């Protein structure tokens, strides 16, 4: 008799109770075991009262989102990683219906109008997804392709693109980076030339997350010949327009479940009213949301690092070497203690920056520091933990090897480490004077 989906959790309960007995005895190691007997992150406080930025509603939000992750996402992650894509429309619709795609977006367009601390709570909880690709894809939808539209787009534009994106009916992607321009955004070459009531767009974009499935792209293009920081505009472009070519799905080291595309624009015509806000302000609009993008990425990775450390503790506790658990060797438990300490430091920085930000402060410096540390610490956590998993860590059967691959992107995408360092130096006034 087929069981309704909601019964999955109760079934998982039965399986997890049995698996716990097996894993501790026979040392059976596979991803599915760990889904059921997932360890509790040590730093989650029991009550909302003491938390720096979270209230009871934040915790209720996390709990509900966690259920969706446990029932609709995690059971399929292994399969999606193997297939190199995930069903974005299906998953975004589930998340959108539950209100998780428009947390800090305007109420008039299906959002909840809450402050950024709720977005951070969502991002933290998404870190419980057993891969990096899907949280990243969701993050693009909620905090990279849509913030500028929400803030500066016309009512008509928001109706056409923002509302369905928040509801989960349309999948969005972001077109900023190009083959020849990543960190150096000002040197992008994609052009949008005005011809009457339309823009004619030529060029291409690279590293487009959700690119093969997206309904529309938030495109940054040169719309005039003015100075490079003042000649770019953001345009909402349906992906079905003639001239839009999805050239290829990029084969990557990690983030396999997230489809990443290279897209070309060949004389694509789009109405001028599809421009977000003012012409020439595109670069500025994008920059305004960097703080949120970066803190969002940090919230994600902090949870993932917690989980990897916990799983490593679980594994090394039952894996014996020279007659005692691997965990009991001081080099192992001391190193894990070091890593956990740094994770907590990063978490504190995240909450501090978020608290300041929701009060209206500019937290560019702290957000850049957090992103920098996030990327680097994730590499350390991945590398050290993988070592303690030994041979098993080197297989595809365990989460740590996937984390090792997926988390490497954090130092590169969303603002490379070097860009973060440059920003911090600017604030420290240590850059060479012109």
């Amino acid at each position, binding site marked *: 008799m087929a069981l309704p989906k909601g019964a999955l959790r109760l079934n998982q309960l039965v399986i997890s109770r049995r698996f716990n007995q097996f894993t501790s005895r026979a040392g059976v190691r596979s991803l599915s075991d760990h889904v059921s007997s997932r360890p509790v992150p040590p730093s989650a406080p029991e*009550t909302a009262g003491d938390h720096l930025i979270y209230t009871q509603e934040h915790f209720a939000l996390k709990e*509900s989102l966690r259920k969706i992750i446990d029932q609709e996402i995690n059971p399929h992650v292994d399969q999606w990683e193997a297939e190199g894509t995930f069903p974005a429309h299906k998953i975004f619709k589930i998340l959108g219906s539950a*209100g998780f795609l428009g947390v800090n977006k305007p109420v008039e367009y299906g959002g909840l109008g809450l402050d950024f601390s709720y977005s951070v709570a969502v991002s933290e909880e998404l870190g419980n997804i057993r891969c990096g690709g899907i949280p990243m894809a969701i993050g693009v939808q909620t905090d990279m392709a849509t913030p500028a539209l929400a803030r500066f787009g016309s009512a008509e534009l928001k109706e056409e693109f923002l509302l369905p994106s928040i509801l989960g009916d349309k999948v969005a992607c972001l077109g900023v980076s190009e083959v020849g321009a990543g960190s150096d955004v000002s040197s992008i070459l994609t052009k949008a030339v005005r011809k009457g009531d339309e823009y004619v767009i030529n060029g291409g974009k690279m590293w487009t997350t959700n690119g093969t499935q997206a309904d529309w792209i938030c495109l940054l293009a040169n719309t005039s010949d003015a100075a490079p920081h003042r000649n770019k505009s953001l345009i909402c472009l349906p992906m079905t327009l003639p001239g839009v070519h999805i050239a290829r799905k990029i084969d990557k080291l990690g983030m396999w479940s997230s489809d990443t595309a290279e897209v070309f624009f060949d004389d694509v015509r789009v109405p001028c009213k599809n421009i977000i806000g003012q012409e020439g302000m595109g670069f500025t609009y994008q920059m305004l949301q960097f703080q949120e993008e970066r803190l969002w990425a940090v919230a994600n990775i902090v949870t993932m690092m917690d989980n990897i450390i916990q799983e490593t503790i679980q594994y090394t506790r039952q894996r014996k070497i020279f007659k005692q658990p691997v965990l009991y060797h001081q080099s192992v438990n001391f190193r894990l203690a070091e890593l956990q300490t740094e994770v907590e430091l990063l978490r504190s920085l995240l909450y501090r920056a978020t608290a300041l930000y929701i009060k209206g402060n500019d937290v560019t410096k702290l957000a850049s520091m957090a992103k920098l540390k996030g990327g680097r610490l994730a590499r350390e956590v991945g590398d050290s933990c993988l070592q303690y998993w030994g041979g098993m860590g080197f297989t595809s059967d365990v989460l740590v090897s996937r984390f090792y691959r997926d988390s490497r992107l954090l130092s590169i995408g969303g603002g490379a480490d070097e860009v973060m360092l440059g920003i911090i130096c600017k604030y420290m006034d240590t850059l060479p004077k012109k």
Partner: protein
Amino acid sequence: MSGRVLVGVKRVIDYAVKIRVKPDNSGVVTDGVKHSMNPFCEIAVEEAVKMKEKKLIKEVVAVSCGPQQAQETIRTALAMGADRGIHVEVTGKDYDMLGPLQVSKIMAALAKKEDAQLIILGKQAIDGDCNQTGQMTAALLDWPQGTFASEVSLEGDTVKVVREIDGGLETIKINTPAVLTADLRLNTPRYATLPNIMKAKKKKIAKVKPADLGLDMTSRLEVLRVDEPPQRLAGVKVETVDDLVAKLKETGRL
């Protein structure tokens, strides 16, 4: 009929947590451990909310017994669509020994106080696995019970309940007021959506003590010792069917 449904929701250790016994064998470790609403209670809440959406009943009241944290469980029920909550404050030793008898006394007293038309509970909690509270509540109230419900249809003053029993499915018709207990296949609980979570903030949770209801929480049971289940021993492989029969005879199984 009042059109009011009481739903009991219990705060239990989350189903995915690996349970650990306390070193002094007096119980299981609960400090700092993730807790959530009992899965069968979620199904009970869902059923009540569905009845309200179909306009078969007017109000869903979520009830939980325990310390301050029980309010989180009530909030989850509110976020799923319950209208208000009642937190029956039970703490300390009374809470440690809180069992079906005490809870059913509480539910019976509240049902009378709130003039409830229906009480819906989960069939059992995943920590105690007692499967007694629904039945005891019905007995205390002298109300009919529809337990292990996999399908419920409210028809005027009666309820049709399809029950999951060993032999298959049994359909009964009982009069209201009645007690129902939810089984696995009754429904699929909805996700508490973020808009509803935020709306739940404004819903009221009344706090009451068992003494206010004139109830005695003393337990008739005493926990002597809690141990982990025995470790599963390694099996033995045999070569032939004859060996197998011999082994079974040897261990007295045959």
